[in-house]
């Protein structure tokens, strides 16, 4: 029996790519942003991140073990990623119990209720974030003022984000340099444009994602807010402010590109990105909420199956 040859259909070799390699790749790409947030938000950032990741892993493990009665697949890294992304979307002074509720919503409602990795319709981290945003609007919209490695958690000074300032009509914004580096109020991971862009380059080099979704989101937002700014510069902020502030880059690079909930074909991805860009701009400029990224992504997530039907990959020699 030992000498029997193995028979299987071709191909006989495999690229060696795995689900967990991709997940850990995204995690590595998120590291620069994590370091920046640790620098600006200090202890708070550390606690929020640790609690979020730990509770996401725990919930996934428990649900798989107790409800699904299957071998838990924590090691594929997707729960860690959901936890980190959820943390990145939270203010660093959020109480622990709220974070745990958010993690439960993300993993329980956002992911496992659909059957686990691969079957979810919505980005789990965003489900958690929006759940918290609606349930705890006050806690979710007070951000600590960035400092240098502050050792405060829930007791620090709080301020507003650029977008909420805009929404209230305030003209005194942080400088572009501060916005680019991340020295502004905001959720953990969204503040530093430069760190997120480093992650983007890493993802592109490792071919974990393609450029289509992020670039189409950013370009659409830039154009739309740019036109509005050009029409009425006093009412509407410069497009660069919109691109650099809030969760736009984090969402475009790391949330919208989530494999499971984004379209499969390249033209579908572009349509998906344009949709997110438009919705984000509309919510930001005309809506009650200062930030529209999460809602825009979730709405487009819901449209993904439809996009997959109408935007097929370019067929060889095809019509």
């Amino acid at each position, binding site marked *: *029996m030992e000498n*029997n*040859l*193995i*028979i*299987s*259909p071709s191909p006989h070799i495999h690229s060696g790519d795995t689900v967990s390699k991709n997940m850990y790749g995204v995690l590595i790409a998120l590291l620069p942003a994590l370091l920046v947030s640790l620098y600006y938000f200090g202890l708070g950032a550390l606690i929020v991140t640790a609690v979020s990741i730990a509770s996401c892993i725990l919930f996934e493990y428990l649900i798989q073990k107790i409800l699904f009665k299957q071998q838990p697949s924590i090691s594929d890294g997707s729960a860690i990623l959901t936890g980190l992304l959820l943390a990145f979307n939270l203010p660093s002074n959020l109480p622990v119990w709220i974070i745990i509720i958010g993690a439960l919503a993300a993993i329980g409602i956002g992911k496992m209720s659909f059957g686990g990795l691969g079957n979810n319709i919505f980005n789990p981290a965003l489900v958690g974030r929006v759940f918290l945003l609606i349930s705890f609007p006050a806690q979710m919209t007070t951000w600590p003022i960035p400092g240098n490695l502050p050792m405060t958690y829930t007791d620090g000074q709080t301020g507003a984000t650029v977008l909420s300032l805009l929404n209230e009509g305030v003209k005194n914004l942080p400088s572009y340099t501060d916005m680019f580096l991340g020295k502004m109020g905001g959720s953990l991971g969204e503040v530093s444009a430069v760190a997120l862009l480093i992650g983007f380059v890493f993802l592109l080099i490792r071919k974990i994602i393609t450029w289509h979704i992020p670039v189409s989101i950013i370009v659409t937002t830039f154009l739309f807010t740019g036109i509005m700014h050009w029409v009425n510069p006093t009412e509407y902020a410069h497009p660069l402010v919109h691109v650099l502030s809030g969760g736009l880059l984090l969402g475009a690079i790391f949330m919208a590109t989530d494999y499971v909930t984004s379209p499969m074909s390249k033209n579908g991805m572009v349509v998906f990105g344009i949709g997110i860009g438009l919705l984000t701009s509309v919510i930001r400029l005309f809506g009650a909420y200062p930030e529209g990224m999460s809602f825009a992504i979730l709405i487009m997530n819901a449209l993904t199956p439809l996009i997959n039907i109408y935007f097929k990959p370019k067929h060889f020699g095809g019509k």
Partner: protein
Amino acid sequence: MILIAIISLGGIGAVGAILLYATSKKFEIHEDPRIARVQEVLPGANCGGCGFPGCSGFANACVNAENLDNLLCPVGGSAVMEKVAIILEKEASKTDPTVAVVRCNGTCEARPKTNQYNGVSSCAIASMLYGGETGCSYGCLGFGDCEAACDFDAIHINPETRLPEVIEDKCTSCGACVKACPKNIIELRKKGPKSRRIFVSCVNKEKGGVARKACTNACIGCGKCEKECAFGAITIENNLAYIDPVKCRLCRKCVVVCPTMAIHELNFPPRKEKDTEPAVKPQKKPEPIETTTPENK
């Protein structure tokens, strides 16, 4: 005030009712009421074994057919067809009940592995690739496409023999497994009196020596059974014996003469002393194929 409310709401209700009634009358689809009645007596499994899309399709076909000669619900069998015949005032065709029979006895013991399959566990995919994990390229692959196809939980792969076994009481003879099997091993055979059947449990068309080398339980096409049969029920074609279930009188003489014990008998009472002698080898038992024994029948 209350009166106005009652009148106006009542009026709206009445107008709505009239409109609904009118449209339902206007667009009513006339369906032969017998279709629904026929459907009621059908088993409702929607297995497609009859060759029509579901039970409603079959009911429709029965009502529209001139006679019921070629129509049979394999699940319900003659009993159901008679009920259908009464509803439609037609003559039901007499058919003998059939049951799925697995014509391969290439157990792991009898059929040594010559290679190791490492693809998707599906007979259809494996058979597209090659002849199978053993030397016999006709026999059961054991990946259970038949089990997956069965809607009635009536066929299962025995993990020890890696062969499918039919649970006779559950088998409705719908033919789903027959279609699913890429090797054409499963056959719907006449159930026979008291479920007694005799059949050749092998489909290997190779020459005797080659077949035997691949599987010790193989039919080698030696022709002994053909000579033994007094009713001309056995024919040998392509080195393979086949017993015609219509001609077979269940005398069991062929079972005894088969040198490889490829002919199986099912649900018979034990033989008398002197009959059994040539076939006393330990593996000679009907269980590997069917789990129903005369006792629980």
